[in-house]
């Protein structure tokens, strides 16, 4: 059996658990409180006669990995949550821009009480009666 003492001011309990979890398949691991700021990790191999020196080193390396993963995960927490929230609502809230004239609004958003087909027909009718169309029509009649 090998014993590792870990300072909890450097490595969080969560990181220690994450690391220990990786080794559970091949080793027996038990955590004990050693001091106020230290945790004692007992590592025992499931196979007889295995040299645990290498495993202790691997455990320590993995502990650094786990700590870094947790730190990055903590740092990216907000952006991760924003992306997931935006994905769930179907739009990216983070890129919402100031649009006082309503340029970015869709037609439906800017005309909430109007049917789009009726509006298009009305526009066509208006065009027919426009002086430009009349002029063209007159020209056409002449030809």
């Amino acid at each position, binding site marked *: 059996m090998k014993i590792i003492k870990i300072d909890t001011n450097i490595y969080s*309990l*969560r990181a220690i*658990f*994450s690391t*220990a*979890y990786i080794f*559970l398949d091949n080793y*027996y*691991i*038990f*955590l*004990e*409180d050693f001091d106020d700021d230290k*945790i004692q990790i007992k590592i*025992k191999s499931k196979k007889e006669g295995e040299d645990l020196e290498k495993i202790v080193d691997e455990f320590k390396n993995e502990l650094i990995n786990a700590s870094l993963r947790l730190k990055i995960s903590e740092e990216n927490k907000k952006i991760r949550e924003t992306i997931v929230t935006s994905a769930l609502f179907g739009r990216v809230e983070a890129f919402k821009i100031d649009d006082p004239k309503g340029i970015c609004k869709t037609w439906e958003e800017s005309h909430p009480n109007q049917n789009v087909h009726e509006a298009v027909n009305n526009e066509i009718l208006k065009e027919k009666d426009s002086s430009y169309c009349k002029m063209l029509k007159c020209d056409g009649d002449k030809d």
Partner: protein
Amino acid sequence: MEIKIDKKIYSRESLKKTIQAYASLAKIDFSEEANFFIVKIDNPNEEIKDVIQDEFCNYLLFESGKCL
């Protein structure tokens, strides 16, 4: 065999789940001190008596990791 489990490291909930999982394999007694849970494992099956304590601790670690 007796296991002293530190309350600062392992949660009560995870210990409860571990005891439930191992209850069919041995007689398990649970008691509590100020800073420790005390688990006594008696009369385990002959086939697993050498490993039950260590396996119990591993299972406890696994359950505690899930609760974090």
